[in-house]
């Protein structure tokens, strides 16, 4: 079977699943949505198999079991069908993706473009240089090394998260709705990464934004969830505005939006690199990057991602950690040819990435909600990816995206498993000592934390270390950015171990009624966890550091696989000159050391001497307050944009409207009324007057005649007699 020609089937499967869910889901799982009662701040995760008398939230559990009929609900045969259809569709996509990628690898030129049909055709327009171009967008798919990585991540990790969700969401209402959205998301994400032009990419881009909005607001009965959904949507639109402008500028300058044509044009030599100054290509790149900051939660538009944790945890794992938020990274990597021509923009990207990384890491230090720690960690890791993009190490960014997808999805799913075990508790201050109660969750989360902290041998180490090395050694990088990245690495290790200690080790601070209820998650959840844990260990070995000369070039397969996608990036890399292996060893040692220091300090603070964090908090109160309140960024945005620009601007605009616009309208109305009055006067007195005068004149003339005709018979008879007498008189006198 030729998978390459059947690429269109890859996104079609999840779309089919979504359509089935939306059309027939209600028949499969007839749960009234409105029957869920949700207490504020508690994710409605219900668990059965335990003595109901110990339920920590009696109103929840009583309600849940009443509604679902206890165990009977879970084994509903029709609901099983959902469990088969939705993950099955994603599995089919994964199989087709794997097949297509395998066949692509066999080809000498690893690029395969299929244009199904022309979507928008033949709209001629004048380009900036005066030539006439035709605006065309195809419904076409491009499979190259870059999109290969993306589709495998999306479908592979997506499948595991689907399976996990069948366990995690088993007791939620709106089960089919959840899976419908999830499948729809996978469809749009695959459209995004398989699109062969920017317009179609934008379709997927907006589609995943929509699904993100729908899934963040999945528990829409909770006001905070609805608000978070809206926030995500609005903030993303701000970024999208930049992206659209970037695309329009690209059309105007290059006349095409197809990736292959854009890359060919940009690499043709007709466009000089904008080394000095800030030309049109730089503007284009900055606009595109602004779009990426919205989707990938970078400064200044990262504020929506932490709030997105209002959604169900599998959604946080799939959309807000592993796949959708990396769309911005993918898009910038896809536009590598553009960014390579504009070093100043690359510097902007690197700086924004580095500062986002360290800002988010400092906030993550003091969060107490287990999911929020991971949310800020995600923002921080995305910052790393942009740092890599900015220093020209595109393959490293994608590599980190790849490894991050494994360990961050794993961590999120683990946190979901913890929350599940804790009957909806997310606050780490009320956890602790869970290690032996939920061992699989603990060990998989341990692996995930080690991986993200950067301990050699696990996935995170390879990609993060490569980023730091490239930041240090690349001509676009700098020692300043390297220091920021290094500090962030230490902070990462610290907050991850703070989270591990607060959750799994030490004394239990769990509420007694929850304590009795703690249990390991079902197999549908632990199996995906284990698979992701394995992935978190081995994924990094695709990109072993160059300094590990013991391993051959074949252990750096990831870089070579992606080389064709970033062709001239290799040229840049080649310019850096001889590779300094000893320096790389030193830097590697430093980053590993700082990771270990972070872990040890966290262990010491939160395990050995639990009093230290509190005393530190006391002595560094302003700093702690700054971090705990997220650097007041939300408040500043509220002040500047929500209240300042929207409400304040609204007031100004309101005054303008009332006084100037309404004044104009009212003035026009007054003038009309005045002229109408004059016209009415003229009409009444002059026109009507003339008519009336005519009538009056005629009436006056007719008056003497009128009075003769009295209607009285005798008067008439009198005239007759008088006439007769007159005539007689005439004859007599004559």
């Amino acid at each position, binding site marked *: 079977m030729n998978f390459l020609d059947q690429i269109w089937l890859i996104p079609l499967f999840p779309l089919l699943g979504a359509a089935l869910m939306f059309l027939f889901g209600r028949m499969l799982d007839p749960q009234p949505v409105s029957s869920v009662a949700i207490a504020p701040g508690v994710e409605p995760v219900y668990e059965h198999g335990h003595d109901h008398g110990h339920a920590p939230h009696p109103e929840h559990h009583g309600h849940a079991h009443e509604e679902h009929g206890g165990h009977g609900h879970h084994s509903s045969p029709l609901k099983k069908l959902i469990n088969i259809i939705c993950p099955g569709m994603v599995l089919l996509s994964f199989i087709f993706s794997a097949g297509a990628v395998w066949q692509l690898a066999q080809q000498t030129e690893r690029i395969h473009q299929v244009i199904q049909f022309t979507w928008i055709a033949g709209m001629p327009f004048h380009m900036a240089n005066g030539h006439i171009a035709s605006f065309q967008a195809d419904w076409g798919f491009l499979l190259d090394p870059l999109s290969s990585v993306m589709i495998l991540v999306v479908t592979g990790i997506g499948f595991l998260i689907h399976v996990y969700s069948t366990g995690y969401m088993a007791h939620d209402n709106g089960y089919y709705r959840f899976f419908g959205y999830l499948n729809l998301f996978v469809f749009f994400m695959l459209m995004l990464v398989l699109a062969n032009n920017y317009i179609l990419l934008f379709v997927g881009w907006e589609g995943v934004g929509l699904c993100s909005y729908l899934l963040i607001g999945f528990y829409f009965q909770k006001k905070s969830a609805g608000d978070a959904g809206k926030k995500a949507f609005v903030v993303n639109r701000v970024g999208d505005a930049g992206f659209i402008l970037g695309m329009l500028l690209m059309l105007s300058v290059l006349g095409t939006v197809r990736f292959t044509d854009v890359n060919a044009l940009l690499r043709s030599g007709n466009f000089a690199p904008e080394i000095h100054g800030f030309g049109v290509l730089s503007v284009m790149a900055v606009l595109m990057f602004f779009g990426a900051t919205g989707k990938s939660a970078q400064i200044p538009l990262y504020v929506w991602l932490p709030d997105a944790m209002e959604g169900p945890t599998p959604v946080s794992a799939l959309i807000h950690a592993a796949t959708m938020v990396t769309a911005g990274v993918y898009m910038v990597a896809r536009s590598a040819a553009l960014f390579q021509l504009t070093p100043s923009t690359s510097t902007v990207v690197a700086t924004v990435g580095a500062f986002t990384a360290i800002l988010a890491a400092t906030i993550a230090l003091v969060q107490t909600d287990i999911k929020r720690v991971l949310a800020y960690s995600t923002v921080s890791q995305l910052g790393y990816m942009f740092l890599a993009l900015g220093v020209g190490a595109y393959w490293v960014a994608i590599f980190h995206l790849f490894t991050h997808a494994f360990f961050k999805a794993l961590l999120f799913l683990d946190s979901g498993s913890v929350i599940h075990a804790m009957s909806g508790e997310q606050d780490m201050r009320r956890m602790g000592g869970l290690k032996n109660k939920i061992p699989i969750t603990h060990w998989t989360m341990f692996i995930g934390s080690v991986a993200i902290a950067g301990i050699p041998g696990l996935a995170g180490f390879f990609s993060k270390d490569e980023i730091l090395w490239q930041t240090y050694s690349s001509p676009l990088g700098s020692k300043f950015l390297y220091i920021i990245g290094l500090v962030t690495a230490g902070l990462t290790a610290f907050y991850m171990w703070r989270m591990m200690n607060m959750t799994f080790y030490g004394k239990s601070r769990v509420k007694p009624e929850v304590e009795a209820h703690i249990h390991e998650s079902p197999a549908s959840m632990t199996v995906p966890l284990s698979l992701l844990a394995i992935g978190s260990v081995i994924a990094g070995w695709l990109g072993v550091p160059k300094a590990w000369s013991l391993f051959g070039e074949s252990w750096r397969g990831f870089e070579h696989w992606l080389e064709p996608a970033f062709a001239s990036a290799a040229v840049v890399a080649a310019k850096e000159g001889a590779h300094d292996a000893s320096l790389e060893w030193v830097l590697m040692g430093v980053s590993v050391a700082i990771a270990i220091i972070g872990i040890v300090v966290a262990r010491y603070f939160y395990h050995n001497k639990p009093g230290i964090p509190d005393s530190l908090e006391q002595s560094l109160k302003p700093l702690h307050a700054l971090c705990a309140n997220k650097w007041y960024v939300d408040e500043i945005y509220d002040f500047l944009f929500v209240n300042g620009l929207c409400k304040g601007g609204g007031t100004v605009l309101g005054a303008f409207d009332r006084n100037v616009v309404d004044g104009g309208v009212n003035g026009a109305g007054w003038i009309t009324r005045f002229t109408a009055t004059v016209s009415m006067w003229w009409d009444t007195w002059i026109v009507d007057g003339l008519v009336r005068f005519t009538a009056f004149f005629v009436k006056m003339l007719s008056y003497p005649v009128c009075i003769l005709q009295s*209607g*009285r*018979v*005798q008067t*008439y*008879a009198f005239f007759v*007699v008088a006439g007769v007498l007159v005539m007689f008189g005439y004859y007599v006198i004559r």
Partner: protein
Amino acid sequence: MHPITELHYLALSAALLLIGTIGVLTRRNIVIILMSIELILNAVNINLVAFSHVYGQVNGQIFAIFVIVDAVAEAAVGLGILIALFRNKETVLADEIDLLKW
């Protein structure tokens, strides 16, 4: 004693005509007006009979009988109209029935 000449007849006739005419023109009650018309007709009859006597011809007398018959018919029709008018207007006063205009 003066003999009764045609001049006397003519004077009586003229007097009756004058009384009848003034009655038609001045009285308000339509019944009286009709009676006044009878007076006028009878003034004519006297004239006709008088001249018939003078000229020794019977034409005038025959004509007078025609006039009497005509007067009867006229009275019958006139009173019929009067009754119809009274039914509609509830009055028999000629000046209140001023419909003969416009």
